Structures are given as structure tokens and as C-alpha cells.
């Protein structure tokens, strides 16, 4: 009996550590297709071909090129991936981001803060090839839902939740009523273009530390008070959104007010602001107001 030797006299070991392959070479044949997947519950006696699956690592079809990823170029080099979204009832897509592809990076994530609550959205990713060639969309849908009232810009966002008092939203449409002699009814004149909203909110500022521990963390309260006042007084456009589905590009007007809570020895403050709507919420308006960079 020869231990560790096969019937041909070649030595072999059942166990050996050779894995983590970083290169695949092919030669000395004419190849039709190469498919590598991470699943191992597949039947290797099944010679049926499959398209790219979620666990595919490589799939080369050799259609006059050596493409083997989940991007089939037909010879066109991809420059970047375009991320877009639209409300489900809209026809026009809004561009969110152009994602440059990086070698060795497979997973791409994007957090979209500019969403309305109680709204169904479609998101799409679309490859853009050299020469401006646009590929097909891959689309998915989702319903957006959240609680509270939020103020945010490109870099920061604040949730206003405690003792929240949202004032009336007033829609401004200037008009003039002219009554004429002999006429029963007046003439109403409007500026056809002016239409915007204004509002105000008031709430208590509380740091996460105070909320989580139940004890007032005065240092964190001071920090968050300064942080939010810097945010509200930087004179830059912001986004206002709330759980009822309101969404506006706004400017803070008037003077933000900090009111110390005297019952708590001025350890907690209330904040009150007035705001006015200044733009539409489409991608171009967000870009024009410095809230979005493609």
C-alpha cells in the first residue's frame, strides 16, 4: 500500500492551502464562455448557460471583446455611472450624482437626503460611455417615510422633534382688486409668476446625550446650540422637510430666536425661526442653490 500516492504513482495531498486567486489565464483552446460564481450549491453537471447573477464574480462572453464584469460594453468604454431619481408620477428624471468607477471597487452607495416623506420614488443607475453613449436604466422603487421636521443643507442636517410647533404655511400670490364705476364685479390683477410659501417653526433643542441618558448634558446642549445657530445664520439656502410630505428650498428670514427655558435654569433652549421658499425642488434648482453637486 502506498500512502499518499495515487494509482499513477503521483503523490497527492488531500489538503493544501491554495486560494484567494487574483489572476485567471486562458490559452491553448478556443473559448466560448467563462463563468465564475461564488455559490457552491450549483450543479456542476448542468451545462446550461446563465446571465449575470447576483453572486457572479466573472462572466466573459467574448463577443469581440474581453469584457467580463457585469457591465457589457459592446466595445464602448464606460466613463461613469449616472444616478437619477424621479417621483413615481413624474416623467422627467432628476440627476443626483455622476459616479466615477474605481478599479477594485464594486459596491457604491449614495445617501439621498432630498426626499419627501409619504412619496414613492424610482431610482435608476445608468452607464455613460465615451462619446456620450447612454446605456439602459436599471430601476428600483421605494416609498420614503420618516418622522419629525428636518432642516438640512449639503453638509448638515438637524431633526426638530421636541415641543415642535409648526406654524401655518402661507402661500403668497400677490393680487389687487379694482372696482370700477357701474361694474357689479371687480377686476382682479395678479402677477402671473409670483407664488411662494412662508412659514415658521419653534421647538426645543435637545442633544442626543440628553435624550439618551435622561439627564441634561449641559456641555452637549451648549455645543448643539452653537452648532445650529451657526447653521441657521450662515445665509445659505436650506431644505425644510417634514413628516407630512412638505419639502421646500428655503432661506431663513428675520432673526432666529433662542429662548432659554427659565424653568430649567436656562439649561435647555427653544429655537424659533421664520423662513420663506426660494426655489423649486428639482435637481437644477438644488444645484443652482449650492445644495447638490453632481
Amino acid at each position, binding site marked *: 500500500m502506498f500512502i499518499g500516492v495515487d494509482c499513477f504513482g503521483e503523490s497527492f495531498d488531500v489538503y493544501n492551502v491554495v486560494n484567494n486567486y487574483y489572476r*485567471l489565464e486562458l490559452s491553448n483552446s478556443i473559448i466560448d464562455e467563462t463563468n465564475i460564481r461564488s455559490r457552491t450549491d450549483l450543479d456542476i453537471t448542468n451545462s446550461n448557460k446563465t446571465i449575470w447573477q447576483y453572486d457572479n464574480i466573472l462572466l466573459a462572453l467574448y463577443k469581440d471583446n474581453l469584457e467580463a*464584469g457585469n457591465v457589457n460594453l459592446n466595445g464602448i468604454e464606460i466613463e461613469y455611472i449616472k444616478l437619477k431619481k424621479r417621483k413615481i408620477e413624474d416623467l422627467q428624471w432628476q440627476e443626483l450624482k455622476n459616479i466615477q468607477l474605481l478599479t477594485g471597487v464594486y459596491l457604491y452607495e449614495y445617501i*439621498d437626503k432630498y426626499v419627501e416623506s409619504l412619496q414613492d420614488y424610482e431610482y435608476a443607475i445608468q452607464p455613460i*460611455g465615451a462619446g456620450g453613449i447612454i446605456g439602459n436604466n436599471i430601476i428600483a422603487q421605494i416609498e420614503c417615510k420618516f418622522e419629525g421636521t428636518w432642516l438640512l443643507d449639503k453638509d448638515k442636517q438637524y431633526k426638530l422633534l421636541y415641543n415642535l410647533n409648526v406654524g401655518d404655511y402661507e402661500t403668497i400670490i400677490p393680487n389687487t382688486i379694482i372696482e370700477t364705476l357701474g361694474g357689479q364685479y371687480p377686476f382682479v390683477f395678479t402677477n402671473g409668476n409670483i407664488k411662494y410659501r412662508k412659514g415658521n417653526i419653534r421647538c426645543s433643542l435637545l442633544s442626543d446625550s440628553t435624550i439618551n441618558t435622561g439627564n441634561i448634558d449641559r456641555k452637549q446642549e451648549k455645543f448643539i446650540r452653537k452648532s445650529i445657530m451657526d447653521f441657521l445664520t450662515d445665509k445659505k439656502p436650506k431644505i425644510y422637510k417634514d413628516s407630512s410630505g412638505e419639502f421646500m428650498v428655503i432661506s431663513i428670514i428675520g432673526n432666529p430666536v433662542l429662548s432659554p427655558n427659565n424653568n430649567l435654569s436656562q439649561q435647555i433652549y427653544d429655537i424659533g425661526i421664520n423662513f420663506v421658499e426660494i426655489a423649486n425642488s428639482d435637481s437644477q434648482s438644488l444645484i443652482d442653490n449650492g445644495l447638490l453637486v453632481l
Partner: protein
Amino acid sequence: MALTTPIITNLIQPFPATQSYDVTFNVVGGDQVVSNELEIQKTLDNLQVYLLKIDSFQFKHTIPQNTLVNGIEYKARLRTYNVSGQYSNWSNWVVFYCHSNPQITIPTIVDGKVNNQTVLFTGTYTQAENDLLQSYRFLLYNNLSNLIQSYEEKFDGLLQQEITSLENNENYYIELKTISVHGMEGTSGKIPFLAQYIAPQLTSAITLENLSDEASIKVTATIIQIIGQIGSGLISYENNELVNLKNGMIYFQDGFSLSGNFTLKLWLKNITENTIFLKLVSGLGILELKFEENRIHLYKYANNDVFKYHIWTNETISPLSTDIVYIGLQQIDNYCNIYTQIVV
């Protein structure tokens, strides 16, 4: 009481003389109107071309088709009659043109298709009486004739509009509307077309997550881009579905990473016997496949060549050079399993 002077209320837009046209007027106070009389003259020489009194309570007089001639400027005035046959003063003259409808086409669309996602649509405008183009506008509709976008009105006379982001294999309608210097409106009508072009495909998953604590949506996409390279020799493609490596070698490295367990499936033909046709390279060693003695053999070598692993297929195959051979290979925890057959 008497009749008051009527006022022709509609600014008479240019219209084709081959169509009828309703001239409307208004009367304030005075006797009840039971008839109206319309007179039309050429402005060039004040030659009267039309004079007709009709009995009607309506404040309207229809110019019959083919009464006038295209390409001519006219003026019209109107007076009214009461039940006693008395008539009012003539209204003021109103000047208008008769022009035939312009012919508007969009020759960019060939056989109902366009072949790119960004298209510079160009239109043509011809008008028989030389009523020149003043401005134009393109409109884009989806396949249900819902308006997607109305492009800005242009006065440059180029009849061009670049339309971007047309979706592949989608049907659209496009319309070109014009206004002439005499105010004649024209339209190409809604012209259907299909946007169809070769486009990069993307077969990756996009997943969405509602982050309610952050009032945001998280978008995750898995995008893998691997492009093979020629390692040595010469390669060629056959029939847009095969790559000939009899005299060359290709490799996949950038974007390629095979850690852990895997299943590899290979379809190929005309394998050179007793040579390596597949090699997987790792930092710890090599896995190779060879076609020997009618079986597919798998060899694994550690870098220091101390350890060796060798298995082969139970199945034997005797393929012709034209037969497609299928090979299935699995590695599970460093153990391998291999299978082959000729694909019918």
C-alpha cells in the same frame, strides 16, 4: 332707438383661403341685430372681393372657403341691420392675410427611428406664398402623447433642437410648431419615432433602503468592471462569440478577485492536448487544468512546490475540434470537484 356700431372682436388670424373662417363681432346696446353684412377688399388697390348680407341673430359671419386667394392682404368691415331694415355704421377695418398652411417636416427621423440618445432634430419649413418663419418651438411627448417637455421658443430660423436622454427602445412623439411673420401658426403634427441604439448594458443589482431615522434613502449598487488583457501571442475572435487562443494567452486581473469557495464553468473547443489551458494564480500557489488522456486534469501547486493536489474527471471525452466541451469546476474549502462533457 338705433343700431350701434359693431366691433369686430377677433383679430383675424391668417388662414388658408381654402378653408372657411368665422369673423365674430360684438354689439353694445341699440336695436336687436337680425342681419349682418361683411365687406372684404384687397388692401393693395381697395378692390372689393366680397360683400354679403346674411340674416342671423348670431354675432358671426362665416367667410366661405375659396372666396379669397392665398398670398394676399385683405381688409374687412361689417355692419348690422335691425328688423326694420335699418343698418348701422360700418365697423373699423380689420386687416388680415390669407396664406396656405406651411409644410413642416422633421427629416431627422428616418424610417421612424433615431439612432442615438442625444439627437439634433432639424425641421424644414416651406410656405407657398413665402410667408417667412418668425419663430419655432419643438415639443416632445411620450408614447402616450403626454407632454414631456416644451422646448424654448427660438427666433434664429435654424429649426433645430438638441434633445438628450432619449431612452433606448422607447417610443416618443415630436412636434414642431411655427409662427410666421404674419402670425400664421403651423405644426408638423405629432410625429412618432423610436429611439434605438447600441447601449452599454448594466446587469447589476440596485437596492434601496428607507432610512427613516435619517429621513433619507440609501441607494446601493454593485458594479463590477473587469476587462481582460492579452498576455502573450495573438488572439482573434470568431463569429462574435468565440475567442481563439491557439496562438495567444489572455488574462483577467484588474477587478478580478476570487477568494473563498467558487464554481467555475467553462465552454470551449479545440483544446490543445497535454498543455495548460486554464490557470488560476494566487499568492499561495497555482491551479491548472490540462486535457490529458481524454480526461480533464486539475493540478494544484503550492509556491514552494512541496504540496501538490491532482484530481481528474470520471468522464472521458473524445471531442472533435468543432465540438464544444463543457467543464464544471468547484472549489470548497480547498477541495475540488471537476466534471466534463461534450455539449450537444
